[in-house]
């Protein structure tokens, strides 16, 4: 056996090593996430009062909230169903998985571009306000269901088999087992999934930008697209209205994780 060294090397001290290993990522994330966030808040607060007087801002906020709510409400049950499909033992499982994941694994702008074809010229949905909004909801749901399904499938995998088997042996039917045993156990994962889906919608610029461009006549304008249209300074003020949504999302996730650990 090699002789033990008498002095512990600097890189062997756990505290130093942990710090050194975390430093690059931490420094990068501080410089490119926290600093810009603070800068945006600072620049945006200046223009806040002016922007708050504009009707288009409140309309966009309304669209953002409605869009986010509609998408989450649709994605969660659909995602649950697809989660079961992803876990099911079917023949050609890899092909099903590849196809089912396609909406999320393709670049968002390209999917939206692909959807502009069938939703645009043949059906003219994108030319009228309500159908255009429905189209935006549909593309988001189409795109985010696989993401939700993957996350919820992972949550389902974490449920211990013996609990479900015990419930089945006790005579509990499918629905009773699902709502009595599985749902309470997967709730933290499901809540976190819903929050990430919501964040993907209220922060998204691509679907609205490529599919409708905020039109027709501002009917599908959301906060991100409005912020982009306003440029650097005006955009910061508009984007600030997303801050409460972000804080709410973080709070819900932290609460769900803490509950899950209990």
């Amino acid at each position, binding site marked *: 056996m*090699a002789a033990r060294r008498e002095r512990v090397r600097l890189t*062997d001290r756990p505290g130093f*090593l*942990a710090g*050194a290993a*975390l430093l*690059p*990522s*931490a420094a*990068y*994330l501080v410089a*490119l*996430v926290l*600093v*810009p*966030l603070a800068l*945006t808040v600072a*620049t945006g607060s200046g223009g806040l009062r002016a922007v708050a007087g504009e009707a288009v801002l409140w309309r966009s906020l309304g669209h953002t909230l409605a869009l986010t709510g509609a998408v989450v409400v649709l994605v969660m049950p659909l995602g649950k169903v*697809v989660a*079961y*499909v*992803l876990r*099911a033992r079917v023949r050609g499982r*890899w*092909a*099903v998985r*590849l*196809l*089912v*994941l*396609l*909406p999320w*694994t*393709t*670049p*968002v702008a*390209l999917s939206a*571009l*692909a959807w502009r*074809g*069938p939703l645009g010229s043949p059906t003219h949905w994108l030319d009228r306000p309500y159908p255009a909004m429905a189209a935006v909801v549909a593309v988001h749901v189409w795109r985010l269901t696989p993401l939700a399904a*993957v996350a919820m499938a*992972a949550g389902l995998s974490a449920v211990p088999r013996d609990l479900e088997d015990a419930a089945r042996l006790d005579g509990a039917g499918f629905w009773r087992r699902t709502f009595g045993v599985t749902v309470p156990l997967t709730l933290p994962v499901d809540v976190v999934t819903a929050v990430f889906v919501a964040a993907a919608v209220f*922060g998204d610029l*691509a679907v609205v930008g*490529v599919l409708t461009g905020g039109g027709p006549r501002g009917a599908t304008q959301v906060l*991100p697209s409005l912020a*982009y249209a306003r440029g*650097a300074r005006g*955009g910061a003020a*508009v984007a*600030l209205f*997303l*801050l409460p*949504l*972000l804080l709410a*999302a*973080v709070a819900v*996730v*932290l609460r769900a994780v803490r509950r899950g650990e209990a």
Partner: protein
Amino acid sequence: MNGVAARSTARALRRRRRRAAAGHVAKRSAVYAVAVCAALLSAAPFLWSLGSAFERGIGRRAPTLAHVRTLLRPALLPTFAVNTLVVGGLVVAVTLALALPAAYALARLGGPAAFGILLLSLVPPPLLLPSQSRIVAALGLADSLWALVLVLPVVTVPVSVWLLAGFVRAVPLDLEEQAMLDGHGRVGAFVRVVLPSALPGVAAVAVLVFTLAAGEFTATLTLVSSVARMPVGTGLPYGATDPSLLRPVRAGTVAAAIPIAVACSLALGRFLAPRSNVGGGA
């Protein structure tokens, strides 16, 4: 039990077994039906684009490759593809360089929960981009691929750290300790033992990071304005807006989207597959 009771019990049992078997078949058919529907719905817009990409024009039946040939003109798909590959490759390198040590630290040395870092991916890009573009401009990187290499890891590093921490945790502690007893020190143990064992997972994360970088739209749109430097995600919607390019762009959409999706699915398959040890990963 006498004969009559035995026969009726047997009949009842056969009936129950038949009903159970029928129920089982019904369940399997339902699962297949849903799977097929889901698969078709998922592929729908790409199937439509694919059909449209080979159309000759209204009323003509025979398919044509003319649109594909237009797409392959140097200023279009090849330029976008090269930009995508260059940016993607550099972002993978930067992300792994940042995320691997951090993942090791969080997995082994008991830092704060790796999950916390994921919270950063909740931040909506519109809150960051105005200031990030100012930083980029101040550094003199405006409208360059380097701007993307600098900013895109914001999206990829948190996810990578979380996933890599899971893979590092799956490497048994005794392997590492054995290496350290042999006199290598923690860093040596990391390079000699942990990295090789976690390599498949690292490879999967690398592929995932590439697809995330290739798919990123908002940052790319904000930071890069000249068409010649656009990657595939912004080049196709915004770099080819001439109406005559409609069908070539449709062909390009499928050509770019499918390989990226396949690569991403393969990488995800690694994460979805059950891990060999119990309790590994987040």
